């Protein structure tokens, strides 16, 4: 460990070798392979530089906001301080993790556990189902610029959720995971790992929230979604950290033959939030739908980087990221579609749409394509527009006041994404969260 302490505090910030040692001491009961990986990850984190102005993957980002100083490891909290959360819809199970500790669980119904479905904390999964976790947990490379922060996530990952659905099993109700950060300065490293085996079907919803009055926090989370042949995975994430929080979310999706993966990310919280999403279409018939909705207020910055890699013929992907910008908020979207040479008949779509609700807001779009096959259909585009005056007049001409007319139009803008949620109660509950956030 001595060699690590020589690294400048400016690149590791609060996450010094001593703090890492303290973290390792908390998780020493976990399998040795995992602890080895964490040590290697810490070394990578400490060795890598912070992003620089010249890094293409950080174009337009506020680099000065990325300082890692001033945070501390999550402290154990009093369970009574955490109010029980619910999905807003009947679910198959719920986990509530506060500062990485499991404080509440609504276990899976017996009919699912009898079929071999696993829904538990990542710590328990590492202890009891190491063979199922190991091939998938953080197994994909970081390709979107945050190698340092992904390594930080792996090094300090303390707990999270593990969902495993065996072959031919359908979990017909959503599973809810609540990640709750309490205390000023708290650093949280949540992770959700979803493994759906052949022809399995599952819906998982992740919620990220801060305790009231939490102030500045640091959230560095990730999710791995693995869809085996014929599997259908729906993943929803609602990011609603405190408005002073620096947030990272890393997604890696692996889609095997004839899969359908739908991920919907809602971004509302944080001071500065970076989201990296990486989909690999690995076998024919794989389909990945990558959707996101962002409500950017005040001086918030939402930085979204995406990569769709088509590695096999007859694969399809559809990306739609919609941002509503208010006040002096800023969004960055940078997306790349890569089609490998033998991925013929790829059908890939990428779109970023920005609804400008303020003249002072700033939306940056960098769509990109890298096509090495010759028989493909790929389209991409980005638009930024204000509320359409004719649409607004139409609503007002029915007696609806201008404020409400604008609200309806903004919700209409979001509905294109929200409408993809098949579970209507879950849809309504997410719509309500957005409505509340929008009014705030």
């Amino acid at each position, binding site marked *: 460990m001595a060699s690590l302490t020589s690294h400048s505090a400016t690149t590791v910030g609060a996450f010094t070798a001593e703090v890492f040692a303290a973290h390792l001491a908390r998780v020493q009961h976990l399998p040795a392979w995992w602890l080895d990986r964490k040590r290697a990850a810490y070394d990578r984190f400490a060795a890598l530089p912070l992003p620089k102005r010249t890094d293409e993957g950080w174009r337009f980002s506020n680099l000065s906001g990325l300082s890692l100083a001033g945070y501390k490891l999550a402290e154990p909290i009093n369970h009574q301080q955490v109010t029980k959360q619910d999905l807003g819809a009947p679910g198959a199970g719920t986990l509530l993790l506060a500062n990485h500790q499991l404080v509440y669980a609504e276990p899976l119904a017996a009919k699912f556990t009898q079929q071999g479905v696993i829904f538990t904390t990542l710590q328990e999964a590492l202890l009891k189902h190491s063979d199922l976790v190991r091939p998938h947990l953080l197994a994909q490379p970081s390709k979107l610029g945050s190698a340092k922060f992904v390594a930080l996530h792996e090094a300090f990952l303390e707990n999270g959720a593990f969902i495993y659905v065996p072959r031919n099993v359908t979990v017909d109700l959503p599973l809810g995971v609540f990640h709750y950060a309490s205390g000023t300065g708290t650093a949280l490293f949540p992770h959700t790992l979803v493994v759906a085996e052949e022809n399995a079907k599952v819906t998982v919803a992740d919620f990220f929230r801060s305790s009231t009055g939490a102030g500045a926090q640091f959230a560095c989370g990730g999710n791995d979604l693995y869809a085996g042949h014929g599997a259908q995975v729906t993943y929803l994430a609602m990011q609603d950290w405190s408005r002073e929080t620096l947030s990272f979310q890393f997604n890696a999706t692996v889609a095997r033959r004839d899969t359908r993966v739908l991920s919907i990310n809602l971004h509302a919280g944080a001071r500065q939030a970076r989201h990296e999403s990486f989909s690999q279409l690995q076998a024919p018939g794989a389909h990945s739908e990558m959707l996101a909705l962002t409500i950017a207020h005040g001086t918030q910055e939402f930085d979204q980087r995406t990569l769709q890699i088509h590695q096999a013929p007859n694969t399809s992907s559809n990306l739609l990221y919609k941002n509503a910008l208010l006040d002096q908020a800023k969004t960055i979207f940078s997306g790349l579609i890569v089609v490998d040479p033998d991925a013929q008949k790829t059908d890939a779509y990428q779109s970023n749409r920005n609804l400008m609700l303020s003249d002072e807001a700033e939306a940056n779009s960098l769509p990109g394509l890298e096509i090495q096959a010759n028989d493909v259909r790929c389209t991409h585009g980005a638009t930024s527009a204000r509320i*359409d*005056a*004719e*649409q607004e*007049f*139409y*609503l*007002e*001409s*029915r*007696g*609806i*006041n*201008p404020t*409400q*007319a604008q609200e*309806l*139009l903004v*919700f*209409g*803008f*979001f*509905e*294109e994404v929200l*409408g993809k949620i098949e579970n209507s109660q879950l849809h309504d509950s997410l719509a309500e969260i957005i409505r509340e956030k929008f009014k705030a």
Partner: protein
Amino acid sequence: MSLLEIKNLHISIGDKAIVKGFNLTIKPGEVHAIMGPNGTGKSTLAKAIAGHPSYTITGGDVILDGKSILAMQPDERARSGLFLAFQYPSEIPGVSIANFLRAAVQARMAEGEELDASGYYKKLYSKMDLLKIDRKFTSRAVNDGFSGGEKKRCEILQMAMLEPHFALMDETDSGLDIDALRIVADGVNTLRSGPLGILLITHYQRLLDYIVPDFVHVMYDGRIVKSGNKSLALELEAKGYDWVKQEFAAANA
């Protein structure tokens, strides 16, 4: 008694005067057809009365039930009892007809008063039955991807739900084939039995075979140049608008 009075109305788009001294009074239950060649100010009249921000009223007044509406915002005008059926209704993706109409109905209630959801749906479905509209229609986004006929039926449904005192129907027949026209006209005739007053703007006599007006007015160069009953529309059909233009030119010579 409810009354819509349009008095010596002048309307401009930018610096260009479009409507130049339009006068008309509509009583409850009356249907007034406004006919005239393209570019004569018919649609401008309807949109400006509804409060469209692109039009400036430079003179005259519009009085609804004794009160001028010119200082009112478009939403206030609508809540006061005016309804504009658009020639080209806007498409509103992501907003269902049910939610849109609900917001419009809620907007007409007193502050703090809660909409009774079951009563609302009961009324909505009864209006849809009356207009022979499939109930699945309400979950579709407003006009999004609708055919011309569906858009116009959606306008009529809104009119039925919001129960205005006066409706300004702008080229309701445009873009409709004969079957769609008949369906839309049936809808208007169904609503007509009440105290509703209608200003029906049309370029073609065809619509008036289905919605028979009480009065027909010919608009030319921004004002009414001729008024009569249903037979005036037939006369126009036979002689064409050139007849009006020549008469107008002769009168102004």
